[in-house]
């Protein structure tokens, strides 16, 4: 059902060190929709995403398809929810791995102990690598790729999980415009299949191309609404101190600095 909540946050608060980063967030993200999360730096977007993915200690409750996330075994959760973190946070040691092997890591939640990758695993990896145009480099080590190429491999890793819910933090980092457009197409195709995509995005035109938008500021959700909704645009301009303006250009919403 496209209106049922895939992921729900109830009074989720989180602290990083001694600072309170999320203040009692209540959020329901619909399934089979693409939701983007935007906000100024330090708004708590990445922290919220991690909390939703179950990777961060938090107060309050997160529900995945109605089930309390804390009660789901880690492996089952990993099969249903795929998380892609911000790149450049400590993957230098993956430089030695072949692109194919990196993508295959995304199949770990589906693999049994000591089992070799199954045919289903191999097909999923191929699909994922092809969808990000990384299939031709499958025999190259990750360290030899440029920033954008690397990001496409990491994206493929997240896609290979073939999870119902995908949470992605800055998935477009280092990607050039054609590949950004490719990613958008992939996101839309996933949603068409019935999956849920949630992405934290800095690129406002991309964020406005989603179905729904969550606007955050200082650890709170300021607005949650459709991307075509003028109220959403107002909220967006507000959190950026009215230094941007949302325009309609050639069938797309874009945000330009004033």
């Amino acid at each position, binding site marked *: 059902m496209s209106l049922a909540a895939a992921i729900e946050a109830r009074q989720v608060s989180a602290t990083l060190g001694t600072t309170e980063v999320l203040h009692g967030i209540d959020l329901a993200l619909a399934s089979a929709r693409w939701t983007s999360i935007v906000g100024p730096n330090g708004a708590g977007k990445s922290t919220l995403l991690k909390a939703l993915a179950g*990777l961060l200690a938090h107060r309050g409750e997160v529900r995945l398809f109605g089930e309390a996330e804390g009660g789901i075994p880690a492996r089952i959760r990993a099969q249903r929810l795929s998380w892609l*973190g911000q790149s450049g*946070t400590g993957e230098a040691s993956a430089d*030695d791995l*072949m692109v194919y092997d990196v993508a295959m890591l995304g199949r*770990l*939640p589906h693999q049994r102990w000591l089992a070799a990758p199954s045919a289903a695993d191999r097909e999923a990896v191929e699909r994922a690598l092809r969808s990000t145009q990384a299939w031709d480099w*499958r025999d190259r080590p990750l360290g030899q790729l440029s920033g954008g190429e690397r990001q496409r491999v990491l994206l493929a890793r997240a896609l290979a999980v073939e999870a119902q819910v995908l949470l992605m933090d800055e998935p477009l980092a280092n990607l050039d415009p054609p590949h950004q457009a490719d990613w958008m197409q992939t996101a839309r195709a996933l949603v068409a299949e019935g999956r849920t995509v949630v992405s934290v995005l800095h690129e406002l035109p991309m964020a406005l191309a989603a179905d729904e938008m969550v606007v955050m500021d200082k650890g709170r959700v300021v607005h949650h609404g459709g991307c075509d909704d003028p109220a959403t645009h107002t909220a967006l301009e507000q959190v950026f101190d009215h230094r941007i303006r949302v325009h309609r250009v050639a069938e797309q919403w874009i945000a330009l600095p004033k």
Partner: protein
Amino acid sequence: MHTAHLRRVVLLGAALLVLGAALLLFGLGIGSTGFESLLAARHDPVALQIVWDIRLPRTLGAWLAGALLGLAGAVAQGLFRNPLADPYLLGSASGASLGVAVALMLFGGSAASTQWVMRLGLTGAAFVGAVLAVLLTLTLARGVQQTLRLLLAGVIVGVVLGAAKDLITIASADILQAIQGFILGSTGLVGWSACAVMGAVCAVCLLAAWALAPVLDGLALGEATARSLGLPLGAMRAALVVVLALATGAAVAQTGLIAFVGLAAPHLVRSVVKTTHARLIVLAALMGGLLLMAADLLARWLIAPQELPVGVLTAVLGGSYLLWLMHRRSARGGLS
């Protein structure tokens, strides 16, 4: 399917195995009595005993100890995400030396303690010492969650246990040479039972490491990603530390403290083929076995009928290899 890459992996593995078998056969002819023993083995029971009961298990034991060290080195480097990690990081070397020192000291003491020491054996004491030292490190670091803390605890335990061993050697000066012999490393005491023990531990550790290797690959993408893939990080890390302790303890117990094999084997593998940790660990074991066996043969051959301590040889060879590596890197332009 990236068959080209897999083919390289398999080729390397096969090459290491074949070379290993060749050296094993070659090792039958090296020792204090040279090739004559091999030729005389057919009609001379003592020569046969030398070849079959002394040289064969010794050479095989060198391979097994090297395999254990190579495997432990690969696990350590993956666990700490540091290419300079070696199997002795968590204090196992000092623990083993302390175990041997205590055993030697108790041996002369009372009848009861002598009985205990004889039942346990010096190898048992070394193994127990190594494992207890790693447990102590784990306790000090309060678990495996923070690698930096684990490393620090390992250094502390290593230093403290080393000091304890020194105190014991000062108190009983006549065990000094025996301890020195243990520290410099040698395969001279390895017989068939030692090979059986090492073989069993090697098989178990390889299997366990193969099953646990995905956590090392996952960690290469960052801790949060590894957790998001549903990997039970804490339990798997703890299990890997156990594998590390067992493999290192078993090797050190039988052959003493041999340097560089654990450090160099994974590096050498990676210089030929870069791959996932599961395959890296197996290949590092094969490479480590080959390295130590070759070093042991050299140690027995260079000044025959006398022997060099193999630990000294591996340190010299390992050091030279690292020097060459550094030279090659700086020649290519900049130390990376």
